[in-house]
């Protein structure tokens, strides 16, 4: 139970950081952290199927697609 509380707080912090960062690469990494913690939470809440999908799609593929898109457009929020 204490792990779930700690992870939820960390997830909120990462989500706030993703909103505040002006450097978009840093914001995307914060989003990936949100996904990774969500995946750990799904596992702790006994949903391993969803945890696997969240880890593979949310933390890996979406992050990569965002990073490629940022590399091809602009790195800093105007």
């Amino acid at each position, binding site marked *: 139970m204490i792990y779930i509380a700690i992870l939820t707080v960390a997830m909120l912090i990462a989500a706030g950081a993703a909103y505040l960062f002006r450097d978009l690469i840093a914001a995307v990494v914060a989003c990936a952290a949100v996904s990774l913690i969500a995946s750990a939470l799904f596992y702790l809440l006994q949903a*391993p*199927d969803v*945890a*696997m*999908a969240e880890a*593979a*799609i949310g933390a*890996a*593929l979406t992050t*990569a*697609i965002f990073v*490629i*898109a940022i*590399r*091809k*457009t*602009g790195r800093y929020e105007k």
Partner: protein
Amino acid sequence: MRAFLSFSILSLIVVGLALSLSHVPFGQDRMRVADYYLDHGATDTGAPNLVTAVVLNYRALDTLGEITVLFIASLGVGIFLSLQKKKDTTKDTKNLPEASLIVRRGSQFLFPLILLFGGYIFLHGHLTPGGGFQGGSVIASAFLLMFLGNTGYRLRQGPLAVTESLAGITFVIIGLIGLGIGGYFLNNFLPKGSEFALFSAGVIPILYAAIGLKVGAELAGIVANMFESGSER
């Protein structure tokens, strides 16, 4: 004025949502169908992983809709990125520095192992956690690793499109065979076999293999389109 207007519309929405949700009895057990799945799922479908039993037996038509949505998303990315003029992308990648030997060889060494792991996940979808979507995304992440580790790596789109189409057609044909034999779409017409065996649960492993290949090909296609399009900045 504008801020006041948007604030009042937002608060109207919040009040409306709160009023309508206040009548919903949260926390009460009103899902009688869940108990049925827990009691009869494994014997009905032959799949010990109940998530798979629901996704590919009781709710298999919804899964067909889900992979259709993913297909449309992949198609949209492909069309949108092919709207810009096809440029010689090899010139862009020439400016990028080559990755170090360890990164290149490491990614090439891990590539088949990750593919194998993805295949393992979707072939054991009816026994252990995971399934077609998870295995497919693991397969796509193997291609992502190759793109990241090897500058100028290119993926031929033809085999991807063939794999994706064949997998989708397999899913629909199995559904239609079930319709012909059992009277409803995606009927589990094969024998269920013994529990916890790899070849059990009837058509579920075949369907999950089709979904895994389809999802893997679609996501790898999206990643490849993203890498190969446009210019670097």
